[in-house]
Structures are given as C-alpha cells and as structure tokens.
C-alpha cells in the first residue's frame, strides 16, 4: 500500500481477490468433478468390456485361443474401433486388434486379475484411457487336467479413445472460464458501487468540514438519523475534539482580551490624566500631582508587563534555576509582613502551624519568594474581612506540604482549575487597585512546574478556600 492508502482501493482489492479466489475454486471444483465423472464412466465401460474380453482368452489342450480377437474381426464396427492387445507373459508375443494397425498399446498391469488404469497416447497423437490386467487364460476343456504352472498368463490391455471426452472437457473449461470472468466482473462492479455508495457519507462529512468558515470551526457536526452507525463514533470523537479545541481557543482569546484590557485600562488612565492636565494652565503643584498619578499608573503597567514576561519565560522553559539555601518558614513570615497594610485594612490575622522539619530548602530563592508571596497575597485579597488566614507546613512522603487557606464569603461555583488561567478572575473585575495583575496564580503554577512542585487550589468546604503546594525534599 502506498503512502496514501485508499479505503476504496483496499476494499476493492480485498473483495476482488476474495471473489477471484472463490470463482477459481468454483471453476476448479466443477471442472474436476465433471472430468472425474467422465473418467469414471470410461473406466466402468473399459472394466466391464475388458472382463468380458479376458474371459475369451481360452486354452484348449494347451493351446491358446484369442476368441476376443475373432469377435472383433467378425464385427466390422469393432474392427475399426476396438483397441485391444494381449501379451503372452512367457513368450512376450502379442496379438492386437486390427484398429491398432502398426501401433502398440502400452503394456501394464497390476496384481493377477486386478485391473489398473492408465492415460496414454498411442501412435504419437491419439489420447486413450486404458485398462491393463494380468490374467490366466481360461481352460476351455476342463476335462483335461492341466497343472497350474502350465496355464499361460496374459497381459491384456484394452483402450478407449478419449477424444470425445477431451473435447467435452475443453468446451467445459472455456465455458467455466467465461462464466467465472463474467461473475468476477459483475461482482466487482456491484461491490465497487456498494463501497462507493457506503463512502458517500464520509466524503459528505469531509466536504462539510472543508466548507467551514473560520468562524464556524468550533461548531459541532450535526448528523442526520440515517447517518451510518460506523461513522457515528468518528463524528462523536471529532465533536469532542472540536469542543476541546474551542475551549483552548476561547482561553487563548480570553488571555489576549484580558492582557489587552490589563494594558489598555492603565493606558486610558495615562491618556486621560495627561489630557486633563493639558486642558488649561495649572499650578506647578497641580502638574506635579498629575505627573505623580501617571508615574503610579506606569509603575503598575511595568509590573504587569514584567510578570507577563516572567510568565512567558516560565512557560517557554527559559527560566534558569539559581539554587540557594532558603528558609521557607522565614520566607512565609516575610511575605506576611509585607502585606501588613492590606491585612490591617481587611482586619486579617494569621494562624501559623509550621511543623515541617525540611523547611530549609535548596531551591531558587526568587521563584519560591514569588510563589509564596502570590499565594499569601491571593489569600489576603479574597479572604472574608476580619477572618484568619491559616498557614501550615508539614512533611509527607518525602515532600514538604505548604497549605494556605482563607475564609470565603460564599460558596465557589467555579472550576478552580480556571484560576490558573492568566487574567482569569471569578468576579470578572480586572482592576482591583490592589496591585493585582491577574496572573499571580498562573505564575504560581508555572513556578511550581519549574521547581518540580505540585500546586492545587480548591475549596475544602463551603466557607474555606485552600492552596496547597507539595515541594519535594531537596538533598542538602
């Protein structure tokens, strides 16, 4: 099969070969059945005639009489047709029917009185079927006692021309070949039609997919009730794939929209603050305040862009780890203290339960710092006001487990995996004004992957949301 195997070609080739084989087998079986039947009929005739004729090989007073020959010679029809010959086993002398003329029949035989058959050619061109039999001449005068060894033995061969049978078989062969070829061609055409018809839905499916516009790519394929069941699985699988592709496309689209939003909104801010500053003459202090605003906005944009770049680097696997000894507990404490203003504003407290004995890690300090800071900041930003944030470490199966959990005001209905998507936010607000860029958790996931850790976020109950990071022990 070539590089582009064709179903139609395979089916045609397969079924064609099968049909050819069946037709050939049919021809062979029919031909040989008929041929054997012909031969059997000839053999039966030869055997009965030969039995009659050998009974006419007689001895009388020690002399042999070939009465069969006399019968032939007396009958003009037999004189022309009968092909018989007898050999005296002792002397090798033979007598033969007149129809043989100068030709000789093959001398052959089996056990005494056991006839054997042979296909032969006599005179170089005449095909015959012959029977050969070893017989004792029949003593005609049974009064005279002749010892067994004195009874002459003869090989008697009787042949029948097979010309008629051969002609009939030749005709039969031609007929069978023609019928076989006709059957093969007819079956081939019928099968080609059936296969072609069966492949129409596949071609139709392919045409429908080809005809799709760019904006219709994600739409599922709708099939009619008479769509072949063998292709339904293919369509269902394709629809499932389309659904997944559409999901990925949507996430990519959302990422672009949200990235654009995160940059456009502060850009709008800069544009408006500067436009407003230029609407009229202002005091230098007023200008200074407005420049300060622009500077703050630009700082925010810088943070967003640098986080985006870091995210891209981590995703592309371009971040090189700089390993160092890090005290994770100290890192957690620092991250919490850095959020003092926010925790004060939201009246949040911390509940510490640091039980890991492997808190000294050999890891990338900066990446681990971003991971820990983002998780604590996230917890502080979304925690219910006045609640406590629980920060816990413990060891489990050669891993340091860090969990940060916070109380949430209402049950989360969202698929938490989506929180790892860049700029994804459950409340759809893109700008909190608390330094959130919307890619904190996405960064955490990429960092976790980079340092060989596993991160999971999920509500533990209706009122608690938990982030868990499992970091393998580092060999120090």
């Amino acid at each position: 099969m070539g590089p582009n195997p064709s179903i139609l070609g395979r089916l045609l080739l397969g079924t064609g070969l099968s049909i050819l084989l069946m037709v050939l087998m049919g021809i062979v079986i029919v031909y040989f059945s008929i041929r054997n039947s012909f031969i059997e009929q000839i053999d039966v005739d030869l055997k009965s005639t030969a039995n009659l004729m050998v009974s006419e090989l007689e001895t009388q007073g020690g002399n042999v009489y070939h009465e069969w020959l006399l019968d032939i010679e007396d009958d003009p029809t037999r004189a022309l047709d009968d092909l018989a010959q007898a050999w005296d086993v002792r002397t090798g002398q033979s007598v033969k029917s007149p129809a043989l003329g100068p030709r000789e029949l093959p001398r052959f035989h089996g056990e005494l009185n056991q006839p054997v058959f042979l296909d032969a050619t006599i005179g170089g061109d005449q095909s015959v079927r012959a029977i050969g039999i070893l017989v004792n001449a029949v003593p005609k005068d049974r009064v005279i006692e002749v010892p067994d060894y004195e009874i002459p033995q003869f090989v008697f061969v009787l042949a029948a021309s097979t010309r008629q049978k051969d002609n009939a078989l030749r005709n039969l062969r031609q007929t069978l070949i023609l019928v076989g070829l006709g059957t093969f061609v007819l079956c081939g055409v019928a099968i080609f039609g059936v296969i072609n018809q069966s492949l129409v839905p596949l071609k139709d499916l392919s045409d429908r997919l080809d005809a799709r516009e760019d904006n219709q790519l994600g739409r599922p394929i709708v099939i009619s009730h008479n769509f072949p069941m063998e292709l339904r699985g293919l369509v269902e699988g394709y629809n499932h794939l389309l659904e997944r592709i559409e999901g990925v496309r949507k996430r990519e689209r959302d990422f672009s929209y949200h990235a654009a939003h995160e940059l456009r909104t502060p850009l709008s801010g800069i544009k408006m603050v500067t436009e407003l500053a230029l609407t009229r003459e202002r005091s230098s202090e007023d200008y200074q305040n407005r420049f300060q605003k622009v500077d703050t906005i630009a700082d925010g944009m810088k943070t967003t862009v640098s986080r985006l770049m870091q995210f891209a680097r981590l995703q592309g696997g371009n971040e090189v780890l700089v390993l160092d000894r890090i005290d994770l507990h100290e890192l957690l404490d620092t991250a919490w203290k850095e959020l003092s203003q926010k925790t004060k504003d939201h009246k949040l407290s911390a509940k510490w339960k640091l039980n890991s004995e492997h808190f000294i890690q050999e890891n990338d300090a900066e990446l681990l710092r971003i991971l820990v800071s983002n998780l604590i900041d996230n917890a502080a930003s979304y925690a219910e006001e006045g609640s406590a944030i629980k920060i816990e470490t413990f060891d489990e199966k050669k891993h340091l487990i860090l969990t940060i959990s916070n109380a949430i005001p209402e049950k989360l209905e969202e698929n938490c995996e989506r929180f790892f998507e860049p700029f994804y936010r459950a409340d759809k607000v893109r700008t909190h004004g608390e330094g959130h860029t919307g890619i904190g958790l996405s960064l955490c996931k990429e960092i976790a992957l980079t340092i060989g850790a596993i991160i999971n976020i999920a509500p533990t109950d209706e009122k608690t949301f938990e982030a868990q990071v499992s970091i393998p022990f580092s060999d120090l």
Partner: protein
Amino acid sequence: MRILLIEDYTPLRESITEHLKDTGFAVDATPDGNEGLKFATSHKYDAIVLDLMVPGIDGLKILTELRKNGDETPIIITSALDSMENRVEGLNAGADDYLIKPFGLPELLARIQAQTRKVYGKRKATIEVGDLVVDLNSKRVTRGKREIVLTKREYGLLEYLTYRAGEIVSRQEIWEHVYQDAEGGSSNAVDVYVSYLRKKLNEGNEPNLLQTRRGQGYFLDPNDGT
C-alpha cells in the same frame, strides 16, 4: 446635565469626573457595580457612562437590569474589550454607544453630548432660542451680536433650560440635573443662579427670555412670556 459614571479604575474615574465637572456636568461616580445600580435606579440621569468590568454586579448586568425596568437613560459603555462580539453584545443588551479604551476625553464628552441632545430631541450642536444661541461644543453663548460670559454653573443651568426650551422646568428638576449632591445647599440656590443668569441674558431693553412661573418653575421663552 447629570451624569452617572461607573468605573472601578481610579485614575480613569477621577479624570473623567473632573473633566465632566469642568465642562459643566454634574457627576455621580462610583467604582462599584452594586452602588452604581443603586444610583441609577434612585436618580434621574441624563446619561450613564458604564465600564463593563466592575466589582459587584458587572456592567452588562447593570445595563440589562435597567432596560428590563424600562429605564431609557442613554448608556455609554466604556471597555477595553474591542472585539465585534463584545460590542454587539453590549449594544444588543441596550447600550446606546460603545467606547473602546483607551479613548480621549473630548471623544467621551462629544458622545455624552450627542446622547443628551438625542434625549431632548436636539440634533444640532447649537440650540437657538429666539436670538439666543448656545453652542454646545464650544460652550459659547451669544444673544444677537452680544457674547455672554457665564460661569460654569450658570452655563450648566442655561444648557439644561435650553434643552428644555418652551417647557416649564421645576426647581427640583434643575437641582437634580445641574447641581452636585455633595455641594449641599438647597433648591433656593437654584433661584439665586436663575437670577444671576437672567441678569446676564437680558441687557437693556432686550425681552426677558427666562420666565418664572410662580409655584411651577422656570422656562426659556423666545416670546417674552407673552
């Protein structure tokens, strides 16, 4: 003209508010969707400027809710989402306009003015009441060949009365559409500013354009109230 601005990004909210106030609008601004919806349902605004992604109830839900309750206040969506689907979704939900960030203050102002003109059935950017001409773009006011210089408040008052020329406008309506809530005072302030405005509009023997209907309010009348 009173505008409601719902925008959570502080620099934008502050700048738009300041600019609209500078150009004579009364502005209520909030960063929160829930508060925005509360404002929109409890006050009569001439236009609402609505960001789609705000905390609390999002912009699209606010829009749908207002339209569902029969509120026909012109709503201008401001959003960084610039795809056709986003714009179609916003406009189909009942928005009158869709402005993509980043946009300029003059453009926002022009769109707000276009929407408010539509509300009061004025297609042109200049409104004439007798020989009084108010240019809504340049904020220039002339009567005959005389240019009238007005303060921001006086212009806001005149613009609102001009939009509703020929109609009696109550003190309460003027208060609601021209004055800031936070400014304090009472509807007596309206009388004071009407008096200032009348003095500037009518000079010498010119017919009195700004009429008072006792117990009902004021109206601009090109026919000297006759």
